């Protein structure tokens, strides 16, 4: 579970927009600044190398012009003197040392004779850094430039100049520029990211408002966005909010109509019940009138009198039971009271006529021994509607089963039909908490919506235990109310 949460937090698609957009701005800024910095450094590097090439050429030009006569005479002192004096003239190049060799590769003189003695062969390791074809060879790793120029006199090479220059200051300048770019870009990026974050937060505020209202709506409270808030938005969101408000009004009206429909359905159900009851009363009434006729005609006969009175009594008892249960179900006094076994058994009388009309067999199993601390009226209504729905769903000559019991203190009622099973969306609707705030859909009857609403009212649970082509078992489970609440009630 925790791992799932972590994974979800790491998934960028789940990050809030107010974080993602500034982050994207920052990343883009970093990318842009990296490209710009790279270009600047590249240009600086080119410019420095060009400058170094020019300086090196000027140095070698000046030096070779002065050195050629001395080298052609192999004048050690003049060569040294020229090198020594040139050190002052080319300070910008930061020459570490310069060697002048003759045509045999022997050192004529060096600016640092202690390390490069005259009249000795120039060491190969020293000359290894100098490329024959290039006047300037760079070794950025060691902050060194190697300068080389052949000395020619009358079209003949008479020697070479080798020089090593310290380019640490150039590299330092490059590093300084890089550091400045880095810090500047970092600060700019942070600034822009912050501005982006605040701007995006402000820009998506209408989205948050819309999100809040949609959340509210999903919990059943569809509220309109206040007109003041709507008028403050930009044109796009003003339009969106207005349309949302129109939609909300339409939904509210639809719900109102749904409630009205439910009431009408209730009345229709009542009509069906009344019709059933009339039928139930009519049957004994026929017998009772026959008994009455028999009494009138043959009341003197003991046998006829006794039988007629028994028939009348049975008929009247049946009518009394029916009236009593109807009164119990629909009496005006709706004060909360605990559910008893009789409350559920009364339903049998109410459903029986409908089952009979549909040619269904009603199997009744009520295991409620004593009162259960759940509200009797809404539970009875919910179960009645479940039973009526089961009757409507079951095929002719099928059966509808009722089984009520108490499990772990909770009331459990299973209603089984032999219909064709519940569609998936209906099943999901019944089992989803809070779904009763809105009707199911156009295709489904209002019965299940009423069941769901009642169930939500009493914090009950509807569980579709089975749903197949051979039938459906819907279970209503209602936890008893907490003690405090019961006392308060």
């Amino acid at each position, binding site marked *: 579970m925790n791992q799932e949460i972590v994974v979800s937090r790491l998934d960028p698609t789940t990050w809030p927009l107010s974080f993602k957009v500034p982050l994207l701005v920052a990343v883009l800024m970093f990318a842009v600044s990296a490209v710009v910095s790279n270009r600047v450094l590249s240009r600086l590097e080119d410019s420095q190398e060009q400058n170094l090439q020019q300086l090196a050429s000027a140095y070698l030009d000046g030096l070779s012009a002065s050195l050629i006569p001395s080298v052609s005479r192999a*004048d*050690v*002192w003049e060569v040294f003197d020229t090198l020594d004096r040139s050190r002052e003239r080319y300070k910008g190049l930061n020459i570490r040392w310069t060697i002048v060799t003759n045509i045999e590769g022997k050192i004529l003189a060096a600016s640092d*004779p202690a390390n490069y003695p*005259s*009249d000795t062969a120039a060491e190969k390791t020293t000359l290894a850094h100098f490329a024959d074809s290039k006047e300037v060879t760079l070794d950025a790793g060691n902050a060194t430039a190697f300068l080389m120029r052949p000395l020619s006199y009358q079209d003949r090479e008479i020697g070479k100049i080798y020089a090593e220059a310290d380019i640490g200051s150039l590299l330092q300048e490059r590093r300084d520029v890089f550091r400045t770019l880095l810090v500047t870009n970092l600060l700019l990026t942070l600034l822009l990211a912050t501005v982006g974050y605040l701007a995006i937060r402000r820009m998506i505020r209408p989205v948050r408002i819309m999100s809040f209202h949609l959340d509210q709506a999903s919990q059943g409270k569809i509220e309109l966005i206040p007109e003041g808030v709507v008028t403050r938005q930009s044109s796009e969101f003003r339009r969106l909010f207005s349309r949302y408000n129109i939609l909300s009004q339409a939904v509210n009206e639809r719900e109102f109509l749904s409630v009205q429909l439910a009431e009408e359905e209730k009345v229709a159900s009542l009509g069906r019940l009344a019709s059933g009851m009339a039928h139930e009363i009519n049957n004994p009434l026929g017998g009772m009138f026959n008994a009455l006729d028999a009494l009138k005609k043959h009341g003197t006969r003991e046998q006829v009198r006794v039988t007629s009175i028994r028939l009348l009594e049975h008929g009247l008892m049946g009518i009394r039971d029916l009236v009593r249960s109807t009164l119990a179900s629909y009496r005006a006094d709706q004060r909360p009271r605990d559910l008893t076994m009789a409350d559920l058994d009364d339903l049998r009388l109410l459903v029986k006529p409908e089952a009979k009309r549909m040619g269904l067999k009603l199997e009744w199993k009520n295991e409620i021994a004593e009162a259960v601390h759940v509200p009797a009226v809404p539970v009875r209504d919910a179960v009645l509607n479940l039973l009526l729905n089961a009757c409507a769903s079951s095929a002719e000559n099928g059966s509808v089963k009722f089984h009520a019991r108490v499990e772990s203190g909770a009331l459990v009622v299973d209603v089984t039909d032999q219909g064709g099973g519940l569609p998936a969306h209906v099943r999901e609707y019944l089992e989803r908490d809070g779904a009763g705030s809105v009707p199911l859909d156009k295709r489904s009857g209002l019965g299940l919506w009423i069941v769901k609403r009642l169930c939500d009212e009493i914090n009950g649970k509807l569980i579709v235990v089975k749903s197949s082509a051979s039938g459906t078992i819907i279970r209503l489970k209602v936890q008893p109310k907490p003690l405090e609440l019961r006392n308060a009630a």
Partner: protein
Amino acid sequence: MKKGGFQRSSTKRASRRRVIAFGAGAIAFISSFGGSGAHAEPPLIFGLTPVFLTNDLELLTKLKAYLSRKTDREVQLVQRRTYEEITALLLSGQLDGAWICGYPFAQFRQQLSLIAVPVWRGKPLYQSYLIAPKGRPVTGIDDLKGDIHAFSDPNSNSGYLVTASLLAERKLRPDQFFRKVIFTYGHRNVVRAVASGLAQSGSVDGYVWEVMSSIEPELTAKTEIVSVSELLGFPPIACLKTQRLSEGVELLHQALIEMAQDNDGKHVLNMLRLDGFADEPETLFDSIAAKMMLVRGLGS
């Protein structure tokens, strides 16, 4: 070593010859140090080898100003890179006088006369030093065998002849004793060559080394004296023997001899770290002549 010489051009012929020489375009190789041009008499031409001091120009300006004032003649100072060039100019009569070295004076003693000899530390004498980089464990010339050795000038007494004669005593020429010899054409350059490590040893004018040690101690501190020669005649101011009695040379002589008594002259002497100039006999340079003979005897 410096050389110098004031040529006394008393004879009109000599003077005329000199004027013609310059009039013919010799000006091109004579350094001009801005004479007033107001003097009626022909200018005095005074030759100098490269001076050792760093502020050469100031010294030359002051020397020229002093000599001009003192002789009441326009004075032109002529500098050349080598002793040989100055000596050639002097011998060819193109200079009234020149500050040359004792070695050329000994070489051309028949043609040259002394005008005056500088006095340093109370004597008209100086020494030649053999120097090596500081800290090098050497005690004499024999330890310098196989070095790259820096000489000042092949016509310098202290910067070549003294060392060559030491080797001649061992029947050796410098190119046989040393691995390589280099000529720097300046005593200061000898010190630079040794101090930098270009040369492992050098022969230098002792007077120049001592003066440098007070003016540029950081440079001489990188060197140390290996051995010191005997006292020898200080590089003199000389002229052609034929012109010794000329008016111009005599004016130069007077100006040099009286330099120590003149304020401007004293200033010039202070810059040169000299006591003054004196009349000295030519025998002062006999010891140099002897060394020359020794070296010539070996064929170097």
